């Protein structure tokens, strides 16, 4: 298998995974699990955050309105991290690692810290890249939770099911991402 598949083979592989997931269990989604991991850590620090609440729909609840929503769904998943969605995301990381070890895409040299297009526009100081990557991560997950899903759950799984919100989300995402990328990265020197 080549390091990066030609687009048609890649599309077939990625599409097959999205189809299998909805055929066997449910549509793929990732960003909710960031909240679940946060809730697990928060509950270690403050054990009152995730509680058993016999009268709630899921049997769990939280003084935090977000973790308590939908009958304490997130609180329940944080109390029982060995559930499908959380293990799926751990599997995602493992799968990417496995593919990289078996000749897939992996960084070399300064790509461990930044892509070439970053270095071409902002120089090679890794700390600037890390600071900006941290801020971008904040924006991406804050945005994903506000929207109710990310590129996987909202855009790919959503559009696959012809979800109106999936199309709305994809339109908003590219409406900001394309102009920002063009303005922020005007040039790229070949490495």
């Amino acid at each position, binding site marked *: 298998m080549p390091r990066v*598949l030609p*687009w048609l083979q890649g599309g077939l592989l990625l599409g097959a995974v999205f189809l299998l997931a909805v055929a066997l269990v449910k549509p*793929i989604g990732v960003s909710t699990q960031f909240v679940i991991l946060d809730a697990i850590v928060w509950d270690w620090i403050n054990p009152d955050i995730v509680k058993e609440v016999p009268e709630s729909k899921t049997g769990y609840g939280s003084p935090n309105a977000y973790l308590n929503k939908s009958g304490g769904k997130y609180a329940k998943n944080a109390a029982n991290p*060995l559930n499908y969605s959380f293990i799926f995301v751990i599997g*995602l990381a493992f799968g990417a690692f496995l593919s990289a070890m078996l000749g897939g895409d992996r960084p070399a040299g300064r790509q461990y*810290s930044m892509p070439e297009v970053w270095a071409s526009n902002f120089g090679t100081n890794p700390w600037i890249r890390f600071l900006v990557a941290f801020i971008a*991560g904040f924006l991406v*997950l804050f945005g994903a939770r506000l929207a109710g899903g990310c590129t996987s759950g909202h855009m790919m799984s959503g559009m696959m099911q012809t979800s109106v919100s999936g199309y709305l989300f994809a339109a*908003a*995402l590219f409406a900001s991402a394309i102009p920002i990328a063009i303005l922020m990265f005007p040039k790229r020197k070949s490495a």
Partner: protein
Amino acid sequence: MTEWILAVVLGTAFGFALNRVGATNPENIINMLRLTDLHLMKVILFAIGFASLLLFAGMGLGWLDPGNLSIKASHFGVIIGGLLLGAGFAIAGYCPGTGLAAAATGRIDGIVFVIGGLVGAFAYTVSHEAIEGTGLLGNLFGGKATIAVTGNEKFTGLLSQYPGEMVAGALAIALILIAVILPKAFRKDGGEAGAKNVVDEDGPVPIKS
């Protein structure tokens, strides 16, 4: 137990696929968004169209359970959240899934992105109640709605006068066609807009890697 095995198998397959299509490399994401390398755009559009076509065909034939579908509601938060996510996506070249996958392939900026993501998700968790209070999360377009009828009664099908398979099939074929005819690039790497010569080099459908 079966659920755990499915989670491991499907999650691993997803991470593997993200790596093999090149989505764990932020270079490819940023160059897609700069419109200088549309490889990933073709992959994404084709994958959505292909999966959708088989999903609705499978449901129409009774092989797949519409009960597995999960539709997210439309509200103003989807638009604002999409714009914010798009900004971070362009700046870093990562989204939640690909950022985590990239971190797993050893990319340090991916690890930092994931940590920033955990902080961002926490910031949302503590501000959700206030945001909900603004009415920003009120339903638009009928809330949990689909364009095609899905056969799952929890979700409103907007084009209910036509068979779901037909509507979804038409959308899926449109996405696949766009994936096929989309050129390799709209712009040259230097950044000059409208550089069409990039397109002519290989023709619109490069199959080989």
